[in-house]
Every structure is written in C-alpha cells, then in structure tokens.
C-alpha cells in the first residue's frame, strides 16, 4: 500500500516562522490529491517535506507503512517533478530518464526497456538522444515526467509542474497528467496555485492558507459547500461575490434586498440581529425576464446598473455594483491580494464590483439598468469574524483524506478562524 | 534541526584548516620580523625574545641611506601613477566596448586577452635595450610604461564586465527629465560606474605593487628600485649577518597594509577577479 499520511506535521524555520501548522492529511493509495492555495500558504513546503527536501519539525509523516521523517529522499521511493523541471543539462533525454535507474543499479537492459516505455507513453521517442536545451518547454516538461515515471515509485510529487507552460499547452498537459496518473494508478500529490487545475485534476483537493489546511474534499464539495470565506473566495472562477448582510430570524437583509435564509443554516434563530457576509456565485444570478415561473419562487429580484458587459459567446459576464456591497474582511483580502486585486485602484475604492454570469439570450447593454434575479437557495452565509460558513459541516461521502476524523471534527483539519497568534509573514 | 554536532564540527575543521593554511606564512614572517638578531635562528615559530630592532634598522640612515625608505617611496609612487593612468585609459576603452558598436571591437578584446597571457620575460630584453637608449633605464617611467601595458588587460576586462551591467537608458531618462548630457553622465552614470572603477583600481594597484621581473631587470639603483626588487638584494647590518630579520620586517611593512586593504574590500576584489570569467 502506498498511502501517505501526515499527522499534525509542522514546519518551523530557524527564525520562528511556521510555514506549515499541524497539518493532518490521509492520502489513500492511488489517489490524486491537490494542495492548492495562494503563494506562501505552505503547500510547496508541505510537498517538500513529503519528499524529504525539508525536515519535519514536529509530527509524523508516513509513506506506505513506514515512518519516513528521518529518511533521505532517495530512501523514500518517491519521484518528484519540479516547477522548472530540473533536467540535467549535460545529459541527453535518455540519460536524464535513466539516471535514477542507474543510481539504483538496475540492469542495463532493464533500464533500456523502462526508458523506451516511458518515452513511448510521453511521445518522446524521437527526442531521446537530444539535450534539454534543444527541446521546447512542453517537451522538457514531459521529460521531467518521464524521469519520474521510469522509477515506478510509491508516489509522485509534483510541484507546480505546469506553471511554466503557456496557457494552451497547460490545458493540454493537464489532461496528459490526469491520463497518466489514471493509467499508472500511482498515489500523486500535486501542488498548484491555480484553482482551475485543482478543480479539474484532483480526486481530492486540500485548500491551504498560511500553513493551515482550510478544507479537504472533492472538488464539487469545495465548490458547493466551502467551509469558510477563504475557501469560498478562492475556489471558483470568476470568484464568488460577497456582500454584507444582517441576519435576523429567518431573513437576511442584503444590498439585494431581504432574502430568505436557506435551509441548513444554523442561524441561532431568535437571537436578535447578527452581521453576516453573504456570498453568491456568479452563475446563480439570472436575467430576471428569463427566469421561469418555477424558479421565480426561489428568486429574488433587484435592479442594477451594468458597468461592463463581456460577451463570451455562450454567455455573458456582466459587472455591476450596488450600494453598500463593500465587504472588509481579512479572510478575503488575502484572496484578493493573490488575485492581484490589491493592485487595481478601482477595486479598492468604494463599492466592490459584482460579477454575474448571464444566459446568452439576456437582453442587456452596458450602462443599462436591468433587473436581475438571484437564486436564494444558493446563497452562502458566513460569520464575518471567523469566516466560518454558517451552514455547518458539509456531508461528505465518508471516504478520502481525513475521513476518519469527520465524525468528530470537520474534514481534514480545517479551521476557519485565523490562528490566534499570526506568525510574522 | 537535524543538523548534528558532527556536521558542524566537520565544517569547522575544514574551515580551520583553510584559515590556518592561509595565515601561517603571514604569521611566520611577522614572527621573524619581531625576533632579535640573536634569536633569529632559534627555529621556533613564535619568537622567544621580542624586539622591534629589525624595524628600526630599516629606517636607519634616513631617506638617503636606509635600504628601505627609497624603495618604499618608489613602490608607492609608481603603483599609484600606474593605477591612475591605467584606469583612465581602460575606462575610456571599456566605455567604448561596452556601449558603442564599432568594427574591431572583438579584435581588441581578443588582443587584450592575448596580452594577459603574454610572457613578460620575452619583452624584458628589448625593453632593457630600448630603455638604455632612450634614457628610461632606472627611472619611474621606465617601470610605469610596462606596468601600464600589462595591467590594462586586467583593468579593461573588469571594467567592461561592470559597464555592461549599467543600464544606460538611465542616462536618457535623466535627459528627458531635464538634465544636460553632461549632468546625466555625472549624476547618473558616474555613481553607477564608481564601484567598478574602484575595483579595477584595486586590482591594478596590487598588480603593480607585486611586480618583480621588470623591477629587477629595468632598475639598478634606489632611483627607481621598488620594494620587491630591494628585498631580493637586501643585506644585513654587516656583510656577515644574515639579513633575515630586516628582510622580514620590510616584508611585513609592505604586506600588512595591503592585507588590511584586501580584507576591507573583499567583496569588490572577489567580484572583480571573477567578473566575466564565468557569468550567467
């Protein structure tokens, strides 16, 4: 069995910064797990600890059934694909891929066979005798993968392997990676900051922030039931819209109007008024006139002036802003910073722009004031202080990373609140 | 941290060996210079009897009779003049090579390299003859000129590498902001070029200070004999005493300031010595 288990793994650097804080994760054998989060969240550090390139300060790390905390990388039977590929420039493609096998004293004929096989899988056969500098970015990336594949290790560790490729190539290679992993069935831990990659590639996704795992679950779970503001704002593109709201009883007052509270929200009904942050995804808006009668039951309409309309052919993205939609939350500021929004002056001042995805049939024009409808069953509500989703624990299917702990606490080790003492960052 | 005591001590031992290896010859010569003439042959590393006698002997006789003062002045003067002229010439050439495009650029650079590996001994004979004819034998210019020739490759090499790093469009930006070309040069380029010029100057100075072959071939008296040459021909107080002590003292006097200098400017020297050698 080659499952990977992190048990309260912590990484503390000599100057005191904690890059990874008590991370616990159970990665089942053969699964593809993605670690995703903004820069500096600790995902690469976690991966490097699994690889053995960083020491584990506290906690236990197991690969297969062995505790590997003190094992050197070469004794862990893992293979790694680096962000900049780290191909040996003085060796040919063949020699690059054969290198780990040679070091393991594998018989020459066997090496030949494995290298040729891997080359065939990755479509590299005609490049075997060339040097890395003669190859394109995509080819180099495949050689890096080839070097990992030939070893037939217990696990693949991939550190943002696609980020150096251009957009189109990235999409192509994404499917390649998924295909290869499915075929080989090797346990894979994959680090990326691109949430699209995370959503499309993984069996399981772990969102990290400042060294803490926020949520672990299937992509759809993270999308539909984010445990806190951070996950909600991080996952999904375009990002979820947020607005402040006041909750009292079974209604919540928002800039969109007064909305009914969705089922399942532990509102603490009858406790008087409470400030919340309301979240709604762009696709849960609709052009009011296109909403059929059935859906109208759950819809709430409001008027908005459209600042910008982008036609994508099959749908529209439209940007509008409403009075009083500005949300100040440090949980969201990190997401915004990661998306580069901190740099855009208009994003900082005044009201925040909202995004809606509207059907192509909508009759809308820039500058128009239109009536939009939102699906009230799909709104999320978050506590402004802790960031926690007021809807409580999502119902998982019981399997997967951290599932054993699901009974007592949320899946994985997710804590919506920011750690009491923030270490210097 | 997993780093054990073992790892720390291995590095410590290695570094200690290197530092000791570098320092021992220097400490030894200092030690010799401090030994009294009686104990100079006591074969021990540390002086058993200390005295500054050797240093006093060096300066006996004042500027005219002391075996050391004149050579010291010669060394300092010749090295300084060489440095100044060399840097000026090299800076002009390096500026052209780094910034302008003209045919023959590569040839000049190749030629510079060729001179760097030129065997100086091969020029000694003709120079000896030429200088005697021209009256430059045993004069300051007689040494400065060959020093210029052989230090220019070094200076040009270093300066070209530094100048290539300067973003020249800053000059244009300054002019757009309202500076005259000269002001732009003075306020923007000169400060950026200064470290490189300084580094090259240090390297040239050390080169001139260090030379021996030309010093003993092209000089014959205190008129222009530099310290390295003087050291080779040192005699002691009398014909029968070994000049070890005073030689050591002289060696210390010319060495310690340079070592202090080198230590103060290590970063510049290291970058100068390796500039362009392997760059990425």
């Amino acid at each position, binding site marked *: 069995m080659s499952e990977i288990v992190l048990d309260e793994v912590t990484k503390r650097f000599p100057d005191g910064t904690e890059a990874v804080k008590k991370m616990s994760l159970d990665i089942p054998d053969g699964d593809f797990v993605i670690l995703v989060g903004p820069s500096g969240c600790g995902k690469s550090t976690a991966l490097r600890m699994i690889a*053995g*390139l960083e020491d584990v300060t506290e906690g236990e790390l197991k690969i297969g059934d062995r505790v590997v905390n003190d094992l050197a*990388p*070469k004794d862990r039977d*893992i*293979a*790694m694909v680096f962000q*900049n590929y*780290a191909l040996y420039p003085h060796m040919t493609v063949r020699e690059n891929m054969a*290198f*780990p096998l040679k*070091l*393991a004293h594998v018989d020459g004929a066997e090496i030949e066979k494995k290298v040729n096989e891997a080359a065939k899988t990755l479509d590299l056969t005609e490049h075997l005798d060339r040097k890395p500098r003669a190859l394109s970015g995509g080819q180099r990336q495949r050689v890096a993968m080839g070097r990992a594949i030939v*070893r037939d290790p217990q696990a693949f560790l991939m550190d943002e392997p696609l980020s150096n490729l251009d957009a189109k190539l990235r999409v192509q290679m994404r499917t390649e990676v998924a295909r290869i992993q499915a075929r080989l069935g090797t346990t894979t831990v994959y680090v990326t900051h691109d949430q699209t990659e995370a959503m499309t590639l993984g069996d399981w996704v772990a969102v990290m922030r400042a060294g803490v795992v926020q949520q672990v679950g299937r992509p759809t779970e993270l999308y539909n039931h984010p445990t806190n503001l951070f996950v909600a704002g991080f996952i999904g593109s375009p990002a979820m819209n947020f607005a402040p709201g006041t909750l009292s009883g079974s209604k919540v007052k928002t800039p969109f109007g007064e909305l009914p509270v969705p089922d399942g929200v532990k509102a603490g009904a009858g406790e008087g008024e409470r400030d919340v942050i309301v979240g709604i995804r762009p696709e849960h808006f609709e052009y009011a006139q296109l909403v059929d009668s059935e859906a109208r039951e759950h819809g709430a309409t409001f008027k908005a002036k459209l600042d910008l309309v982008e036609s994508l052919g099959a749908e529209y993205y439209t940007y509008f802003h409403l009075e009083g939609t500005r949300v100040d939350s440090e949980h969201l500021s990190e997401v915004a910073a990661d998306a580069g929004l901190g740099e855009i002056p208009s994003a900082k001042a005044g009201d925040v722009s909202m995004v809606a995805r509207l059907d192509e049939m909508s009759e809308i024009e820039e500058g128009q004031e239109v009536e939009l409808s939102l699906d009230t069953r799909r709104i999320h509500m978050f506590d402004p202080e802790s960031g926690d989703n007021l809807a409580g624990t999502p119902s998982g299917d019981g399997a997967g990373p951290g599932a054993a702990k699901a009974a007592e606490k949320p899946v994985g080790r997710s804590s919506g609140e920011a750690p009491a003492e923030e270490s210097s960052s | 941290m997993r780093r054990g005591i073992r790892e720390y001590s291995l*590095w410590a031992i290695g*570094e200690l060996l290197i530092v000791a*290896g570098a320092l021992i*010859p*220097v400490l*030894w*010569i200092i030690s*010799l210079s401090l030994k009294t003439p009686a104990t100079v*042959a006591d*074969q021990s590393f540390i002086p058993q009897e200390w005295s500054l006698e050797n240093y006093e002997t060096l300066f006996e006789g004042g500027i005219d009779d002391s075996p050391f003062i004149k050579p010291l002045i010669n060394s300092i003067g010749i090295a300084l003049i060489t440095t100044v002229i060399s840097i000026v010439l090299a800076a*002009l*050439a390096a*500026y*052209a090579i780094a910034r*302008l*495009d*003209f045919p023959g650029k590569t040839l*000049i650079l190749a030629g*510079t390299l060729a001179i760097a*590996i*030129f*065997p100086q*001994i*091969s*020029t*000694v004979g*003709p120079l*000896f003859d030429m200088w005697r004819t021209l009256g430059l034998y045993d004069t300051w210019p007689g040494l400065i000129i060959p020093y*210029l*020739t052989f230090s220019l490759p070094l200076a040009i090499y270093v300066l070209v590498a530094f100048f290539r790093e300067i973003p020249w469009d800053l000059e244009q930006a300054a002019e757009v902001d309202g500076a005259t070309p000269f002001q732009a040069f003075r306020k923007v380029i000169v400060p950026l070029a200064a470290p490189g010029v300084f580094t090259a100057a240090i390297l040239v100075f050390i080169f001139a200070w*260090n030379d021996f*072959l030309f010093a003993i071939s092209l000089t014959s008296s205190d008129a222009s004999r530099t310290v*390295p040459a003087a050291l080779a021909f040192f005699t002691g107080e009398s014909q029968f005493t070994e000049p070890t002590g005073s*030689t050591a003292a002289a060696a210390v006097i010319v*060495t310690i300031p*340079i*070592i202090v200098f*080198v230590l103060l400017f*290590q970063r510049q*020297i*290291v970058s100068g*010595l*390796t500039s362009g*050698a*392997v760059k*990425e």
Partner: protein
Amino acid sequence: MTSRTRSERRLGWMLCAPAVIAMLLVTAYPIAYAVVLSFQDLDLRFPEEGGFVGFDNYASVLSSSLWWTDLFNTLFITVISVSVELVLGMAIALVMYRAIFGRAVVRAAVLIPYGVITVVAALSWQFAFDPATGFVNNLPLIDDDKAWFGERFSSLAVIIMAEVWKTTPFMALLLLAGLTTIDEGLYEAAKVDGANAVQRFFRITLPLMKPAILVALLFRTLDGFRVFDTIFIMTRGAQDTESVSILGYNQLISRLNLGLGSAVSVLIFICVLLIAFIFIRGFGARTQDGRVA
C-alpha cells in the same frame, strides 16, 4: 551607413586608441624586436663584435642541456602546482559555497595570499624551510638537518608549495564562480533520484563545471609556465631548479647576451602559444562571450 553610425565608430576607435597603443607599444614592438635580436650575435659586453647569425642562437639554445633541464623544471612545476591547486581550489570553493557557517571568514582568509607580494611569500616559505632559521625542521617527523635547498627535488618541492599557496585563491574564486552557475534544483532532483553527496559531485557538479575548470586551468597553466619570482628568491636557480624565465633573465640581464637571451625569449613565447592553442583547440576552453575562438 548613417552619419550617426559613422561618428559612433569614430568615437569608439578614438576611445580605445590610447589603451591599444599603450598595450601594443610594450608588446608588439618588443616581441618583434626580440625576434630581430634573436637572429643576431649581440653580447653587450662585447658590442663591437656581432652581426647577423641566422638561427645560430636557436641552435645553441636548443642543443644546450640547460634549456631542456629548465624546460623540464618549468613543466614539472607547472603541472604539479596546477594539479594541486585544482584539487585544493575545488575543495575550498566547495567550502565557500556550501558551508553552513563561517563562509565570510573563509573568503577573507582565502584572499590573504592574493594580497601578499610573491616575493614576500617566497621569502616566508624560504625562511621557514631554511635549516638555520626555519621552523619546519623542528617539526616532528622531519629530519632536523634536512637541507631543503641543497638538493634539486626538495628545492622544487618548496618552490611548488609556495606557488600553490600564492595562487590557489585565484583558482578557488574562479571555481566558486563556476559553482554558482549550477541550478540548485538539479541537486534536489538528484537527491530525489537517489544520488548521495559523492555521486552528486561527480555526476552533476563536475560535468557542469567543465567550462569553468578549463578556463581556470588555461589561465593558471599559462601563468605557471612563467614562474620566476619564487625561484629567483629561493634558489636563484641553483641545484638545477632554473625555469625557462630565469634562463632568459640570466642571459639577458646578468650576462647581457641579448642575442641568446632573445632567442630564449622567443622560444618561451612560442611555448606559451602552444599551450594556449592546445587548451583552446584541444580541450575547448572558452571564456565568456566566446571571445576565444
């Protein structure tokens, strides 16, 4: 060609001119002059005699056993010094690159030999090994009476030690510069691929340092071939420890025989060219910018 390009060219030449002239003055002209002198019988002690003698001087030099002895000495010293310097320099470079503490101290220490005048270094080593004043003979395991400078090979040994001490720093710095060009990620990949430290050094570090090593070897070998100062101070060439440069000096300056001395000079020049040629064409040494063809 625009007038702008033309004036740029003119400016370029003008700026380079002083330096170029200064360099050619003391190299091109003298070497040409040396070639001319080498074909003459010109002994300054007997200036009345003399005249064109063709290749006679060369014949004398090449048939003299002294020349061949000196050539052997020079090559012997060069090859051994450079080899030792390469190994020591590599070790020091690795320490300066990888040590987990104290790197600044090592770098400072390594620069000290650079700041010491060659003559001073030679004197220090000479005094150390001198049977009368030196501390070396006092050390355990060494014969108290060993006359280091009384015999050929022990003298050569001390000469080599002094040369190595003086020039290893430069070698170490060049190699360090080469080390820093290697992408750290390669070492990590190698660690994951299963290589231990020794394997990483021989299979990743060394092959990737080949260009830097060749450049360092080229410069140091050419430098080493010109060894003069150290030998002059330590033995003045006695006990058959002369180098070719000392031979040249003796003929030219001591014996004032410009004809023979020039022949020696020209032969030295040819040897240097040969060495450079072998390194560049044979081993493919290249400096940055591919300036050396």
